[in-house]
């Protein structure tokens, strides 16, 4: 990689190489005290976070295009290059990953074999960030697939009772989806080659491929197969409750908060950019799946006695909201969708972190065996409440902002889908409050009464999450301002190709705080 050719410091390349190098370094730290290994791992993750923040700060706010672009030929004869860049959509996912990995490393430490665990986590971070910044389709695919390996080992080695089953199911399911993605990418590149004579996998170049509508639809389906499994969207979700439940706390956090976003991000970045016409044509199908996911997720979550499975199904519903906002194809809906990706990441990471701590103390995450936790552990209960309220969508917390935007953006163009999805919001309140009541309220049994509350180090670890949840709920403007130009660019492109205009009212993502203020008496 030639660095000096670049006008700027290669922030993005560093964002991938730093955790990858950290993973290698940690892997080689044989015969080093556990504490040192952990400190190195967290330090690397924090340094990555530093670079991610620096990148965000240095970005031009109003520019919707790709920034920090760097491109180097990697394997010329097969047309693959190291082509990376970020825009307002991907930068927040990079930030999300960069925020959550140090928290996961610090908050959900592995009891055994710390060194390989940290190494796999850092490799996973490199792969996740790599996927978010890739502008070459094959490079994206490489990172997208690479995430499977560390995730697989984290589930299989540090998971709970049925970890082997869950790990294999997760791997094979996702691998199967990716099979279609790879063929789809190659077909698209060849269609492009027939039109221009150049074999390339670069996203900006392939955007200009002219596709027959049937080809576009087939390719859209091939791409979406991979993303829908990864996200997971409704009928392709069956791996996720198993994987989320059997993974160790840190693994569940990353799986649901970051890895799942690869799917929804893939839909926004690749499906909408490459196949705008097909996205419009098949939009109602995807919207329907999203709504089914929202309702089904809420319904099944109501029936769970197991906190982890409950969060897994609530994630399914939340992912449904993201897909809803995406396929509404309005600025408002898409901004909401992108924002919800970040918010859902923060909330679900908080859930799994807290559930991990509950398990450490009680050896169970069955709500029935927890009853009355609030009395011995009030701070934990408070943290759980904040996270839960954010997930329910209480105004003032981050979940509300994004859900509002998604529903508003969808309502304008696909009214009945939005109406149906609103029922899911009610459902979320139902199952989360039920679970909270059972786990935290009531009179604690003698053994529960002995439960330790959160220690200082645990409070420090969860604090950033809670701060972000509140901050993004109260003042989401800086984030929305940066997302909007990129989303506008995307929506413009879709509209140009499909010749359908969104209603003028949907072109501005109105921060709901303002909206609520206006409607407040």
């Amino acid at each position, binding site marked *: 990689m030639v660095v000096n050719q670049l006008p700027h410091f290669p922030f993005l390349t560093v964002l991938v190489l730093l955790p990858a190098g950290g*993973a*290698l370094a940690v*892997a*080689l730290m*044989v*015969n080093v*005290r*556990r504490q040192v290994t952990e400190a190195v791992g967290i330090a690397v993750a924090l340094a990555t976070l530093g670079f991610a923040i620096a990148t965000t700060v240095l970005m031009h706010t109003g520019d919707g295009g790709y920034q920090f672009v760097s491109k180097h030929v*990697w*394997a*010329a*004869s*097969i047309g*693959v290059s190291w082509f990376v860049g970020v825009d307002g959509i991907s930068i927040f996912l990079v930030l999300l990953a960069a925020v959550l990995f140090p928290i996961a490393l610090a908050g959900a430490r592995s*009891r*055994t*074999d*710390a*060194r*390989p665990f940290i*190494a*796999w986590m850092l490799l996973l971070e490199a792969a996740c960030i790599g996927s978010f910044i890739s502008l070459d389709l*094959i490079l994206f*695919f*490489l*990172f997208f*697939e*690479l995430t*499977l*390996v560390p995730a*697989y*080992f984290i589930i*299989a*080695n540090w998971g709970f009772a049925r970890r*082997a089953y869950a*790990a*294999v199911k997760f*791997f*094979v399911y996702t*691998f*199967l989806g*990716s*099979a*279609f993605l*790879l*063929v789809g990418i*190659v*077909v698209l590149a*060849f269609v492009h080659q027939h039109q221009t004579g150049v074999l390339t996998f670069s996203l900006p170049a392939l955007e200009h491929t002219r596709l027959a509508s049937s080809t576009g639809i087939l390719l859209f389906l091939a791409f979406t197969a991979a993303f829908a499994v990864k996200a997971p969207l409704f009928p392709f979700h069956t791996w996720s409750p198993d994987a989320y439940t059997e993974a160790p706390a840190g693994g569940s956090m990353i799986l649901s908060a970051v890895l799942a976003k690869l799917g929804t991000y893939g839909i926004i970045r690749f499906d909408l950019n490459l196949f705008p016409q097909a996205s419009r044509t098949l939009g109602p199908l995807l919207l329907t799946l999203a709504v089914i996911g929202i309702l089904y997720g809420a319904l099944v979550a109501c029936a769970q006695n197991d906190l982890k499975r409950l969060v897994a199904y609530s994630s399914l519903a939340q992912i449904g909201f993201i897909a809803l906002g995406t396929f509404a194809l309005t600025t408002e809906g898409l901004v909401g969708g992108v924002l919800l990706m970040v918010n859902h990441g923060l909330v679900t990471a908080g859930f799994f972190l807290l559930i991990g701590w509950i398990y450490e103390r009680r050896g169970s995450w069955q709500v029935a065996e927890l009853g009355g936790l609030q009395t011995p552990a009030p701070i934990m209960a408070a943290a759980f409440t904040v996270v839960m309220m954010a997930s329910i969508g209480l105004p003032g917390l981050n979940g509300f902002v994004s859900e509002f935007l998604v529903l508003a953006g969808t309502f304008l163009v696909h009214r009945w889908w939005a109406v149906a999805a609103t029922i899911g919001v009610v459902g979320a309140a139902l199952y989360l409050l039920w679970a909270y009541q059972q786990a935290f309220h009531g009179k604690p049994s003698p053994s529960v009464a002995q439960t330790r509350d959160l220690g200082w180090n645990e409070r420090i670890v969860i604090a950033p999450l809670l701060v972000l949840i509140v901050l993004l709920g109260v003042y989401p403007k800086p984030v929305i301002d940066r997302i909007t130009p990129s989303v506008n660019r995307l929506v413009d492109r879709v509209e140009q190709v499909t010749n359908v205009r969104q209603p003028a009212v949907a072109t501005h993502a109105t921060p709901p705080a303002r909206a609520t203020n206006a409607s407040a008496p």
Partner: protein
Amino acid sequence: MSRHLSEAAKHAHHAVTSNVIHVPSIRYLGILPVIVMLGGAVVLLGMSSLVKRPLRLRVATATTLIISLTAFGLAWWQWADVQSRGPYTTIDHAVVVDGLAVLITVLVTAAMALSALVAEGYLAREGIDGAELHVLAMVSAAGAILMAEANDLVIVFLGLEILSIALYVLTAFNHKRTESGEAALKYFVLGGFSSAVFVYGIALTYGATGTTNLTQIASFLSHNVLVHDGVLLAGMSLLLVGFAFKIAAVPFHMWTPDVYQGAPSPVTGFMAAVAKAGGFAAFLRVFVSSFGVLASDWRPIIYALAIVTLVVGAGLAVVQRDIKRMLAYSSINHAGFVLLGLQAATARGVSSALYYLFAYMFMVIGSFAVVTVMGRMGDADHDISSYRGLAKRQPLLALAFAVLLLAQAGVPFTTGFLTKFQVVIASVDGHSVPLAVVAMVSAAVAAFFYLRVTVLMYATSDEPSDGVPDAAPTVTPALVGAAGGGRTMWSGTDAAGETRTRLNAALLMEDDASAEPASDEVETTTETEEVTRIPVPVGAAVAIGICVAVTVVFGIIPAPLVDFAHRATLLFLP
């Protein structure tokens, strides 16, 4: 006199002029690797018969290594020659030296060297002295090279037989194992049958085109239209069956699981790499080059063959409990992928197939090296349950095997991904998109059984082990003795040249009790149960290290190997 004749005048039918016997000129560099391998085999055989006691194993292995590395070096010389001066034919156009032939020569000689390293530890463990295995393997390798260099159907057949007959014997090599004998007989009978079919195919092709020379067949077919092409198509089909048998394509794969299981493990790895390489090399040359103009006739057949091969290979591998049978079916699945490259019938297709064969060679020899080591005394311990918990006992070995298996599954940043990626590119380029989809879906099914082994290796032994006879503790000291004392285990002070493996391997190395004395209270307490380390001979360790290194390094830096395959072109492409 022949020296004065210009190259152009030397056509086969001019070979015998009025009363002068025409002696074809020979460019010796072109056939030097074959000569070295065959001659080396004879030398080694001579050495072992001239000394009174059986030849020391180490001497035999060292000689084999020298011979195969010499041939390897010569192959690179050929490569430079072909790249600078272009491909050529020699010995009256019977032998061709082009990119494809040289790449396969490099592959086969490298495979020979790696297999010799693996076999050394195996022979020492089983207490088999002498050089016979090495001699037979070298002859077989020479046959494979000859198949790749053949520019005449008769030479293809010659190579095929040299390759096969040596392999029949190698399969039965360990006469203490009855299943080896059974497998060899099965292989021999079916192989002989397929050879007969192949010869009949040659005869019919000769009948239809009037020549057995591959270039002349191509030029005949491009200049003539056969009104009644029944004989030609029949000949082509029979040739196809012969090749399909050799490369183990479904439905001609019946011998594969039994032979892979029955043959001694190092031989299986060698067979999987070399027989496939030789078979595919000739398959590609005969079909893409000679029958290139008839591509519309044979491409649909290969299409169907590839689909069945992919699906059956992946599907049946899932239900295997014996690791060697599983790898046998997985090799069938891989053959299906290589068929994608052949089916494309383009330069891109050929180069993707060659890349596949080259990268697969390292994966499969490495995998069978691990299987050889894990087979323990008697080479019988191949139930996948014996891999349970390997990561706790021998983390480096487990990690190496995991890398090789995941690479075979097609995980990114290994050559395994690039193999699949390139054949998919070739297939899409050849407008066979559904075939590409089937292939990738079969890869997902295949991932399942590679992961199954990986899961077992990384399983902690808290579940009851399902009835594996644990005979190892009594065997281990004997093994170390048999291995000659000098062969170390995989420990902290390992052989050089595999730093890369250890780099990767360190990623998952558990802190075993001796390495890290009680630095952590939780970490080592549960692992006090008896662990039996399987000794890994130096040779096998080096071979596994090289295989893993190639698989990972060229997966991260793909350009050199990809370009190598891209420049390994056929002499003639319609």
